[in-house]
C-alpha cells in the first residue's frame, strides 16, 4: 500500500504559489479534535467500549437503539472529560444537559447522536505549544461530551454496505479550538501536545491510526491585517499527523490560488486523499444538514458539584509541564533532558522511579535518553515493556559511580546482559564476566613497578622530558591487567611513581 501511494505522489504535481504571494495572506485554522475516552463501558450503555473486537459483538439493545431503551450516563466518561478540562485550565460547567443532534445515517442507530450543544462540559482553556517561531497557547472554545457512531464498511465491487455497531456509543470528547492556529506546523504541534496530554491523563490511547484520536480542520485564508475571515472549508476525519499537515498545506495553496484568481471559495466539507495529497469537495448535502438540536429528554441534567470536581482534581496525575518544572528544579536537569523525559508519562515515571534508588539524577537521565532509548528504538518497544527495573538501572549507575566498571562497559556489556537475564544484579553480572575494575592500589603498584622496571630505557627518556611516553606505560599496564585496571587510579599512580624515581 505504501509503495502504491509513493508511486502516485511522485507523478502528482501539486499546485503551488510563490512565497511573495503567500506572504500576502494570513491563514486561519480551527480544529475540532475527537478523542475516544478509554472507559471500560460505553457512554450510555454497559457494553464494552474496546477496539478490535469482532464486528457487532458489543451491541446491547441500547447501542442498537431498540425501541423502549433509554440511555444511562457513564460517570467515568464525565470524569475523563473533566480531567481534560482541568488539565487545560478550562471552566467546568456546573449545570449541564445533553442534546440530541438529529440526522439519518445507517451507522447512527437512533437517528440522532446524544451530544452537548448548549452546555458543553468545559469552556475555554487551552494547550501550550512550543513552535519554531516561539511559544503560544492554542485556546479552546469548548470541550463537549458525546457518543461515537458505528462504522460503515464499503467493500469494493459490491453495492452493499456493511455495518459494525461496536463503536456506536463509545464516549468521545470533542475539543473545539478558537480559530487562531496559523499554520500546518502549529496544527500538528498542537495535535501532538493534545495526544501527549490525553495519554498523560489516561483518558485516551491517542492512537490516530485506529481513530481514537482524530480531527476535523476548519481553514480559511484572508489578506494580512484583514478583520474579516475568508470563507472556511472543513476537512473531515484526519487521522494522521502527516495527513493533517499535508491537507492544510494543500488547502492553503488552493485557497490562496483561488482568491488570487478571483474564484469564489465555496463553504463546504472536503476530504483529504492521502494518495494524491489533495482535498476534494464532498457532496454538498453533507454541509447543509439542519441537525434540529433539542434537549435530550431521556437524561436528567448533569450537575457537577464542588465535591465531585475536587475529588477529580485530587486524582489528577502529574501533567507534563508540572513534571518539566520538577525535573529542572528538583532534579536539576537541563531543560533539554526534562523535555525529552516528559515527552511521555511512562518515560517520566520510569525516570522518577529510578531516582528513588540513586541521587545521580543526571546519570539516570543520560542512561534513559541514551542506552535505554536506543535499545527500545532498536527493538520497537515501549518503556513499559523494558525488563530492566528502575531499581536495577540504579544499581548499574551505582556500579559506575563506585568506579567498579566504566560507563562503556556498563552500557555495552552489562546492560544487554541484564536484559537477557533479569534475575542477576549488575554486580553479579560484572563479577561473573570479570569486568570489575581494579582500583586496589597495592596490586596496581606492583603492575606499575613491573612495567617501569621492564622499560628502564624509556623511563630515562621520560625523565628527560619525553612526557608522551606516559600512554605507552599505561598501555603496558592495561595489557598486564587484562583491561581491568581503573584508568584514573592507574594514571595517578603511574605519574606519582615516575616523579619519585
Amino acid at each position: 500500500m505504501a509503495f502504491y501511494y509513493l508511486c502516485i505522489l511522485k507523478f502528482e504535481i501539486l499546485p503551488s504559489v510563490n512565497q511573495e504571494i503567500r506572504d500576502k495572506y494570513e491563514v486561519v485554522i480551527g480544529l475540532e479534535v475527537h478523542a475516544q475516552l478509554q472507559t471500560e463501558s460505553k457512554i450510555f450503555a454497559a457494553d464494552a467500549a474496546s477496539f478490535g473486537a469482532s464486528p457487532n459483538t458489543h451491541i446491547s439493545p441500547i447501542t442498537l437503539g431498540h425501541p423502549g431503551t433509554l440511555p444511562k450516563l457513564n460517570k467515568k466518561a464525565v470524569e475523563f472529560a473533566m480531567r481534560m478540562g482541568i488539565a487545560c485550565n478550562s471552566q467546568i460547567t456546573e449545570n449541564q444537559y445533553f442534546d440530541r443532534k438529529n440526522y439519518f445515517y445507517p451507522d447512527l442507530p437512533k437517528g440522532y447522536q446524544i451530544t452537548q450543544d448548549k452546555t458543553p462540559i468545559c469552556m475555554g482553556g487551552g494547550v501550550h505549544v512550543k513552535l519554531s517561531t516561539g511559544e503560544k497557547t492554542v485556546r479552546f472554545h469548548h470541550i463537549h461530551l458525546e457518543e461515537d457512531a458505528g462504522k460503515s464498511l464499503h467493500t469494493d465491487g459490491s453495492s452493499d454496505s456493511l455495518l459494525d455497531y461496536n463503536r456506536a456509543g463509545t464516549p468521545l470528547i470533542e475539543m473545539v479550538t478558537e480559530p487562531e492556529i496559523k499554520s500546518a506546523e502549529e496544527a500538528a504541534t498542537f495535535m501532538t501536545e493534545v495526544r501527549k496530554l490525553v495519554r498523560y491523563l489516561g483518558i485516551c490511547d491517542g492512537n490516530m491510526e485506529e481513530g481514537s484520536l482524530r480531527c476535523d480542520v476548519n481553514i480559511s485564508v484572508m489578506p494580512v491585517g484583514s478583520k474579516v475571515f475568508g470563507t472556511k472549508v472543513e476537512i473531515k476525519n484526519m487521522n494522521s499527523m502527516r495527513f493533517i499537515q499535508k491537507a492544510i498545506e494543500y488547502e492553503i495553496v488552493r485557497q490562496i490560488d483561488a482568491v488570487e484568481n478571483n474564484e469564489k471559495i465555496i463553504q463546504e466539507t472536503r476530504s483529504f486523499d492521502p494518495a494524491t495529497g489533495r482535498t476534494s469537495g464532498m457532496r454538498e448535502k453533507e454541509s447543509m444538514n439542519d441537525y434540529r438540536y433539542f434537549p435530550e429528554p431521556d437524561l436528567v441534567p448533569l450537575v457537577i458539584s464542588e465535591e465531585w470536581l475536587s475529588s477529580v482534581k485530587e486524582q489528577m496525575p502529574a501533567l507534563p509541564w508540572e513534571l518539566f518544572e520538577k525535573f529542572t528544579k528538583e532534579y536539576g536537569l537541563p531543560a533539554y533532558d526534562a523535555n525529552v523525559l516528559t515527552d511521555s508519562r511512562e518515560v517520566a515515571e520510569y525516570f522518577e522511579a529510578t531516582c528513588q534508588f540513586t541521587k545521580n539524577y543526571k546519570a539516570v537521565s543520560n542512561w534513559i535518553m541514551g542506552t535505554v532509548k536506543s535499545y527500545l528504538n532498536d527493538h520497537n518497544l515501549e518503556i513499559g515493556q523494558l525488563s530492566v527495573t528502575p531499581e536495577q538501572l540504579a544499581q548499574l549507575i551505582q556500579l559506575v559511580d563506585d568506579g567498579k566498571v566504566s560507563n562503556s562497559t556498563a552500557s555495552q556489556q552489562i546492560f544487554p546482559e541484564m536484559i537477557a537475564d533479569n534475575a542477576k544484579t549488575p554486580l553479579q553480572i560484572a563479577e561473573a564476566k570479570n569486568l570489575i575494575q581494579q582500583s586496589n592500589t597495592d596490586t596496581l603498584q606492583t603492575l606499575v613497578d613491573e612495567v617501569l622496571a621492564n622499560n628502564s630505557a624509556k623511563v630515562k627518556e621520560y625523565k628527560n622530558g619525553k612526557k608522551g611516553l606516559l600512554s605507552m606505560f599505561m598501555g603496558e599496564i592495561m595489557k598486564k591487567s587484562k583491561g581491568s585496571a581503573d584508568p584514573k587510579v592507574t594514571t595517578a599512580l603511574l605519574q606519582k611513581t615516575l616523579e619519585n624515581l
Partner: protein
Amino acid sequence: MKVYSTLKDIQTDLYAGSITCRQLVEFYLKNIEEKNNTLNAFLSVFDQEALEKADEIDAKIKAGTAKKLAGMVLGIKDLLCYKDHTSQAGSRILDGFESQFTATAVQRVIDEDAIIIGRQNCDEFGMGSTNENSAFGPCLNAVGENRVAGGSSGGSAVAVQADMCLASLGTDTGGSVRMPAGFCGLVGLKPTYTRVSRWGLIAYASSFDCIGPITKSVEDAAILLEIIAGKDEQDSTVSNEKVPEYTAFQTEKKTYKIGYLKEAVESEGLQPEVKAATLAKLAYLKAQGHEVEAVDFPLIKYFLPTYYTLTTAEASSNLSRFDGVRYGHRSTEATDLMSLYKKSRFEGFGKETRKRIMLGTFVLSASYYDAYYTKAQKIRRLIKEFTDNLLTEYDFLVCPTTPTTAYKLGEKTADPIQMYLGDLFTVQANVVGLPAISIPNGLDNDGMPIGFQIMAGAFEEAELLTFAQLIS
C-alpha cells in the same frame, strides 16, 4: 363464572379455594375468543403461557408462597416491551420485531405473580384518541354500536371493559390511559411524570410519556401503581421519591378543597349529558362537605398547541430509529440508501404518524425553532407554574375527562382539529407532569360512559387515589 371487578374479590375466592387461576385464565380466554374478532382489543394472546403461569401460581397459592398480584390477569399495551414477544407499537414499521428485554413496569407485575394474557391494540406509537390509527384496525367500544374505544390505549380499556382480562397496563402521553378509560366506563390513572420507569416503553414523546393502569376499580389502580412505581436503574429520569402504600387509602383530611376548571365545565362544546353529569358530581361533592370553587385557567387555549408542538418535536426524533436498517420493516423496493429510508418509512408508518413526524421536524427546523419549539417550551413552563400554584391552594383540580362520550367510528377522522379537541382536558396533566385519574361518572342518553377527571399535585397519588375511592 362470576364476573370480578377487583383483585381483592378474586383473591378471596382463590384463597377460599372456590376458584383457581387456571379457571380465571380460561374464563378470560373464552371471552377473548368470543369477542375479540369484533372488538379487536388484543393483537396477540399468550394463551398457552398464561395457562402454564396460572398452574404455577395455583401451586404457589397452595404452598402459601404466592405474591401480591396472584390472580391478576393482565393485558399490556403494544407500546410495552416484553422479552421474546412481539412489540409493534401498533405499527407496520415494527413488523416482525421481538423485544430483547422486558419493560420494568411489566417485569415488576410479573415478579408479583401477575399473569400476562396478551398484547393489546393501540393507536400507532400512541398517536391518536380513538384507536383508529392502529395498523391493525380500530378497536371497538364494547358498549354501543360502532363506537370508538378511545385512544390511544383503546385495546387496553376495551379488554377490561369486555372482561377479557382484569386490568391493563397502558401508556398516557396526552390522555391515552384516561380517555379510553372514560369512554369505556373504567378507572384510568396517569401517575406523576417520573413516578414509573419508562424503560421498555416505546417512546412517543419522552418528556410526556407515562405508564398507567386501566382497571375496574380505584383499588386495583392503587395496587398496580404501588408495584410499578419507583426507582429503576435503567431509567435515570425516574424519581427517587419514596413510593407510599397507595392501597392504604389513608388520609388525615375529611374534606377537600376542590377547584373545577370553569372554562372546561362551562365550555360550549361540552355534550349536555357530560355537562350535567359533571355538575351533578360537583353538587354531590359540595353536599359531602367539600369546598368546591370555579377556577379560571386563561392558558387553556394554549394546552393543545403546546402539547402538539412539543410532542411532535420529540416524536420526530424518537421515531428516527425506525429506518429499515436494523430491524422492523424494510422496503423491498429500495434501490439506494435514500430510497431505503423513504420507502421503508412511508410504507411502515401510518398517515397520522407521518403527519406528526413532519410537524415535529418542522417545529425543530432552524428557521422555525424559536417561533415554535422554544415558545412552546416557555408556555409549558407557564402552564406548569400556573397549575402548581393552583394546586397549592386547591387539593385537586377536576373536570370532565373528555368533552363528549365515545364518538362513532370515523366520526372525527375527517377533522383533525375536532379530534384533537377531545384531548383538551387530558393534555394538561402531561404538559405539567402531574398525576390525574379518570373515574366513571354515569352514562349519557345512549348509555355511553362519562368520565370524571381529578388532577393532583406532584407525587400526591396517595391523596388522589384516596379521594377517587371516596367519591366513586
